């Protein structure tokens, strides 16, 4: 057994896992406050990464200008999307809401591929050194940054929901929409804000992943990988999203390891999370931290 490879893969898994955790957190944020299952979460990453790429390469802006501009763009994008497409869907059956986000995902995938082409494009280098050695393991600088950024985002989320006015309003809305409304919380604003925050943070994750792997349509697959994560952690739990992200990140790297060492099935990296998903749904459908639906007659 190759322990060094195993260790490297587990570290990679944890790093990728924090990113999954961040994207899953955005997914949970939307689900919790607006009860919309966002199948277009991956496209947020895609659009964010491409916008940042265009700012840096096409308009040749420096990173510290182009990146904040990307985030501003994504904020507007999230709000516009919510107002134009998701607001008319309030009160519609769940299948309609799911399908509308699937439609959005298809539309934006087509649009982005049309504008930027179907090939992977590399990000301009932001960091001087490509990778650093920690304890005999090579870790890319962008990965370290991604972990730092993810942890900062998670802490920011914690304080946002604990102390800020909007964060509290969001929690109230998630708890009970009618009561929140009767207490004077503008549910409209809460919905728009949750989409905006989700779009911005997803774009951030998209930029980070784009820096490491290059920008391509493959980014939107992260949006699908989010499902095993949120099912494992529980659909409406932010803590669950982070824990689930780390677990799925490690799981897929371990599956890759076992596959390359003994099984030789191939493609386990991408498929293992879905097997995990089915098993979790069979034994614990509400995940580790999700609230259980109790129906009264």
């Amino acid at each position: 057994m190759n322990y060094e490879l195993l260790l490297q893969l587990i570290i990679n898994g944890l790093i990728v896992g924090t990113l999954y955790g961040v994207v899953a957190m955005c997914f949970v944020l939307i689900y919790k406050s607006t009860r919309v299952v966002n199948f277009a979460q991956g496209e947020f990453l895609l659009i964010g990464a491409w916008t940042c790429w265009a700012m840096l390469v096409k308009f040749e802006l420096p990173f510290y200008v182009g990146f904040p501009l990307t985030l501003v763009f994504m904020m507007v994008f999230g709000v516009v999307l919510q107002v134009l497409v998701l607001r008319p869907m309030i009160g519609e059956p769940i299948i309609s809401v799911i399908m509308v986000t699937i439609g959005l995902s298809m539309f934006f995938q087509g649009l982005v591929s049309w504008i930027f082409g179907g090939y992977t494009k590399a990000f301009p280098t932001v960091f001087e050194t490509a990778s650093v050695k920690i304890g005999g393991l090579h870790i890319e600088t962008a990965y370290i940054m991604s972990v730092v950024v993810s942890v900062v985002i998670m802490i920011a989320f914690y304080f946002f929901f604990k102390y800020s006015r909007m964060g509290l309003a969001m929690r109230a809305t998630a708890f009970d929409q009618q009561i929140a409304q009767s207490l004077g919380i503008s549910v409209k604003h809460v919905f728009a804000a949750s989409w905006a925050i989700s779009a911005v943070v997803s774009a951030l994750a998209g930029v980070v992943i784009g820096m490491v792997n290059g920008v391509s349509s493959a980014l939107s697959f992260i949006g699908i990988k989010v499902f095993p994560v949120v099912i494992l952690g529980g659909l409406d739990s932010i803590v669950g999203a982070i824990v689930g992200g780390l677990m799925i990140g490690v799981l897929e790297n371990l599956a890759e390891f076992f596959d390359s060492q003994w099984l030789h099935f191939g493609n386990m990296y991408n498929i293992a999370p879905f097997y995990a998903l089915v098993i979790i749904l069979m034994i614990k459908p509400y995940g580790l931290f999700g609230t259980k639906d109790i129906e009264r007659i």
Partner: protein
Amino acid sequence: MASAHSRMRCGEFRTTYQADLTIFPTPLARRVAVASVLFLLISPLFLDAYHLNLLIQIGYYGIAALGLNIVVGFTGQISLGHAAFFGLGAFTSAWISNNSGIPVFFTIPLAALLTMAVGLIVGIPAGRIKGLYLAIATLASQYILEDFFARAEWFTGGSSGAMASPVSIFGYEMYSDKSFFYIVLFYVVIMYVAGANLMRTRDGRAFIAVRDHYLSAEIMGINLNKYRILSFGISSFYAGIGGALFGHYLGFVSAEGFTLMLSIQFLAMVIIGGLGSVMGAMLGTIFMVLLPEVMEYGVHLVGSQSSALTQALAYIKEMAIGLAIILFLIFEPDGLAHRWKMIKNYWKLYPFSY
């Protein structure tokens, strides 16, 4: 009652239970349905290859779409894995006909039965979970089956795909599109009549009860688990028939054809056509098959010289499908079938619309 012409009835009134339970709401609808089938029977005589191809596509996708409508529109379960069953039908039929002497005409229902068996197995979790969780579970089953297609070389030929022989019955091989058209038409008529009749039976009404209010349905003695799994099975059977026809029509089945994208297209057919409407499944299929063709025509019309637009055609088609789903859900959530009903009602009540 006075003679019919002196007091013409304005609107559609049913006075007996028998009248309420007919397949076709009015005698006119029945005559139109029979006439259109007769018209389709003679249509290969004057249609060119391109239009015939479109009709065949509408046929096999239409069968699969009706299957999806049974599970989504009538039972209220969400399935994101329909394309995988469609693919399973195609591969199974190709495999049976290649590995046994059974003529292709009979391998199609056999393949559908096997697809149904797999659908019943996948449907077991559906008995326990619902709504959103089910959507995600079927999404996983889509990826798992897709992965299986790419890997199981003994069954699907792996990445190189499987050959499917042309339809043969009692030693006659049917190579031409024209003869294949009749095969598809045969299956379309059978499956649609069966689908329309299913909704008049006890099981069909149970599906609708489960969809409308599953708690009440359970209290009234409907076995939720059984009907949820059964609807998955029936839907996979339809997908199997459609997929098998697809495979034998193309003569070649490749694992790349049955992605999540196709599942979404099936869902789009059902939603655009109208959830819970047998005719809606067909209308939606016609819309979704013609939409890319219209886009292609439009692109060639706008810029036959500009290659940029032609190169982006695949993306434009994708965008158009996405946009169609969004616009229909926002502006016509009940689909084309509902719109058609409104037009009919308008004319039925024509001068006195109130």
